């Protein structure tokens, strides 16, 4: 400290503390050495050293998603920043609040192709909610506070702050944050328009075949939103489906929950969506994986859409009553109107609607072949669900078949317990995300449901788990294929399994061992329970290598470009409903 002034790095740590940051996930390098030096001299902010910067962002996402706080990342310039890009894009797609601090070469070298220089603000502009390059240490505190505000307000997202080394070393005065912070241009609308809310509730009250379709926005809005949603749905007696990102916002064990919807959603959820007359979409964005063929998406319905991001409204699907606002606030407004008007849903119509839904439920769309010879991936997940039931447990996933099976077979009764890469579909997300969750919840059980292909994408993070004694459980459904790629090749490309076989896999037991963890194998259905029980007992990280049926496909499935009612329920169905050529072009 000189003349009461602080260095940029010291100011940075002060503001992080102000903002309630307890943990930073990062990796040092030349440009951020001043920050690491300042970190060394204090105790308020803890640093978790990852093994690759991509892992740092996913870990921060896991931390953020499981706590509702902003996740903080610290990486160096150049490759440090470019390695973070996938994680930033992931956080943008799934609306996860992240503040990512990137080092930068000193201001006088910017633009000179200096060592480890990259145009970080240029590269990250399209994959962040907002980004900043701080050129004057006197702006640093203000920019940092603004970054936290932007990351967590409205629809949350990642914010990058690029920090040239001379700014980190420069001196400036520091004053604590002003009490009231108002942004000059970014002030998202929280309260829904009363007239729209009233019309929406009136519409719902008169519905014969209503459905709630809710997504990650409910979880981002906070636990109160889930509570209000649950109350409102129970009060109305209406069926509810969740998106992949929205699982846990409504208790999965409740009888009004009809399961996840979309490409690998349940038969009952998708048919209820197709046949509904009033749809209440809360914090979901009509993603193509949810809607299927857009012209045949819930064609007989009036649609209500609640979203804090006005750009989500009428983007893919035109809706009848848009309501811009925060999910919890708008749900509270809707319930108030419902109670004031003493509304009741049409009991007779609803009973008939439920009869239809129960009929679709009766198809038992998640059924699979029971066998004692080979481990079916669905069986492994059913056992994982059964043996972790009622425990304080968090699940993350990688991306692919195992992710969809996990979404189908694990039951989430609370929000913030399910972390998956939904929008971007990032293989390699699950392990670092699980690390982030475990850092935030050291006593909880944290399981990464993985595939053997995905797990190899960020396998280096085992070293992080070992260093911080994070007892994450990696539950690999090992079918020796990039399962979803293989499934699409089987269904769409004549069974030509081009490059989807995972040759030369490591011995996962030895791999775990070499990183000071424990590896377990299950090869027969009878061994699955023992492996799960054993895995939960070990207080180190565990890789459970579950050798599953190589040829199992994930059903039900709406082929791309098809409508909700064109679901394939199982292998026998696929021949009867060949996939259209327009469908083939879609991802």
């Amino acid at each position, binding site marked *: 400290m000189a003349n009461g002034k602080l260095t940029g790095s010291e100011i940075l740590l002060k503001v992080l503390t102000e903002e309630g940051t307890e943990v930073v996930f990062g990796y040092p390098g030349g440009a951020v050495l001043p920050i690491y030096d300042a970190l060394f001299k204090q105790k308020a902010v803890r640093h978790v050293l990852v093994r690759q910067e991509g892992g740092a962002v996913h870990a921060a996402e896991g931390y953020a998603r499981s706590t509702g706080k902003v996740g903080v990342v610290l990486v160096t310039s150049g490759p440090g920043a470019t390695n973070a890009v996938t994680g930033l894009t992931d956080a943008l797609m799934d609306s996860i609040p992240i503040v990512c601090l990137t080092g930068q070469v000193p201001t006088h070298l910017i633009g000179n192709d200096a060592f480890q220089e990259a145009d970080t603000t240029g590269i990250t*502009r399209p994959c962040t909610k907002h980004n900043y390059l701080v050129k004057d240490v006197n702006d640093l505190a203000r920019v940092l506070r603004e970054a936290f505000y932007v990351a967590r307000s409205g629809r949350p997202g990642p914010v990058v702050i690029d920090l040239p080394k001379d700014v980190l070393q420069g001196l400036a005065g520091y004053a604590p944050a002003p009490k009231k912070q108002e942004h000059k*241009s970014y002030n998202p609308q929280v309260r829904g328009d009363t007239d729209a809310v009233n019309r929406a509730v009136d519409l719902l009250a008169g519905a014969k075949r209503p459905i709630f379709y809710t997504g990650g926005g409910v979880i981002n809005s906070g636990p109160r939103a889930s509570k209000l949603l649950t109350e409102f749905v129970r009060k109305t007696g209406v069926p509810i489906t969740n998106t992949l990102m929205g699982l846990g916002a409504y208790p999965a064990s409740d009888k009004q929950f009809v399961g996840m919807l979309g490409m690998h959603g349940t038969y009952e959820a998708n048919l209820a969506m197709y046949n509904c007359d009033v749809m209440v979409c809360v914090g979901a964005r009509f993603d193509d994986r949810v809607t299927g063929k857009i012209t045949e998406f819930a064609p007989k319905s009036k649609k209500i859409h609640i979203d804090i991001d006005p750009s989500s409204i009428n983007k893919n699907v035109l809706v009848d009553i848009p309501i811009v606002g925060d999910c919890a606030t708008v749900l509270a407004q809707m319930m108030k109107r419902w109670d004031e008007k003493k509304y009741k849903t049409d009991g007779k119509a609803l009973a008939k609607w439920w009869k239809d839904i129960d009929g679709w439920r009766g198809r038992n769309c998640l059924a699979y072949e029971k066998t004692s010879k080979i481990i079916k991936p669905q069986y492994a997940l059913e056992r994982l669900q059964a043996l972790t039931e009622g425990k304080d447990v968090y699940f993350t996933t990688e991306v692919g078949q195992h992710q969809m099976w996990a979404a189908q077979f694990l039951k989430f009764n609370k929000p913030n317990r399910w972390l998956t890469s939904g929008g971007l579909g990032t293989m390699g997300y699950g392990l670092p995300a699980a690390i982030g969750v475990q850092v935030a919840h050291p006593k909880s059980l944290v399981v990464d449901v993985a595939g053997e292909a995905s797990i190899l994408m960020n396998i280096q993070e085992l070293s992080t788990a070992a260093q911080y004694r994070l007892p994450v459980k990696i539950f690999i459904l090992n079918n020796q294929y990039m399962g979803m790629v293989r499934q699409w090749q089987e269904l769409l490309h004549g069974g030509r399994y081009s490059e989807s076989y995972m040759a030369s896999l490591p011995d996962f037991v030895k791999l775990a061992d070499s990183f000071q963890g424990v590896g377990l194998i299950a090869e027969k259905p009878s061994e699955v329970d023992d492996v799960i029980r054993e895995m939960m007992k070990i207080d180190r990280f565990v890789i459970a290598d579950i050798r599953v049926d190589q040829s199992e496909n994930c059903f039900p499935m709406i082929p791309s470009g098809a409508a909700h009612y064109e679901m394939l329920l199982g292998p026998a169905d696929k021949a009867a409903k060949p996939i259209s050529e327009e469908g083939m072009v879609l991802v």
Partner: protein
Amino acid sequence: MSDTSIERHVIAVLVDNEAGVLARVIGLFSGRGYNIESLTVAEVDAQKSLSRITIVTSGTPQIVEQIKAQLNRLVPVHRVSDLTEEGAHVARELALVKVRGSGEKRVESLRIADIFRAGVVDSTARSFVFEITGSTEKIDAFVRLMEPLGLVDISRTGIVAIARGEKPI
């Protein structure tokens, strides 16, 4: 079903005049595949450090609504105003047009410039630079007439626009 007719819209955007703000707006258009017919930008309030961007774009009504929503959620954007939708507005373009020639053609170009109220801002023995302001159509017409008279170079600003009446953006 949704309306698929293509409409042309003039959109005014008030933004903080900070580094990268134009790149943000342009990146939004290129990243999401929207059209830009023209785009102009300049600082309009030095004290508050505000710039005004005028964008001429085209798309279906649903796309135009998306463009406005997407612009609105950029952090440094203060206001987005669809001048085409919000009533009457004045739109003007400025062009500098270089014409090279001699004899009758040279005289003819001066005569036409006079009709269009274009001024001569540079002149040599063999060339003129005309300055013309007006609607896009007027400038198009002027340029067409100059083509056979030795048109060699054009620089156009693209549209700047403002709503008629007393209300600001």
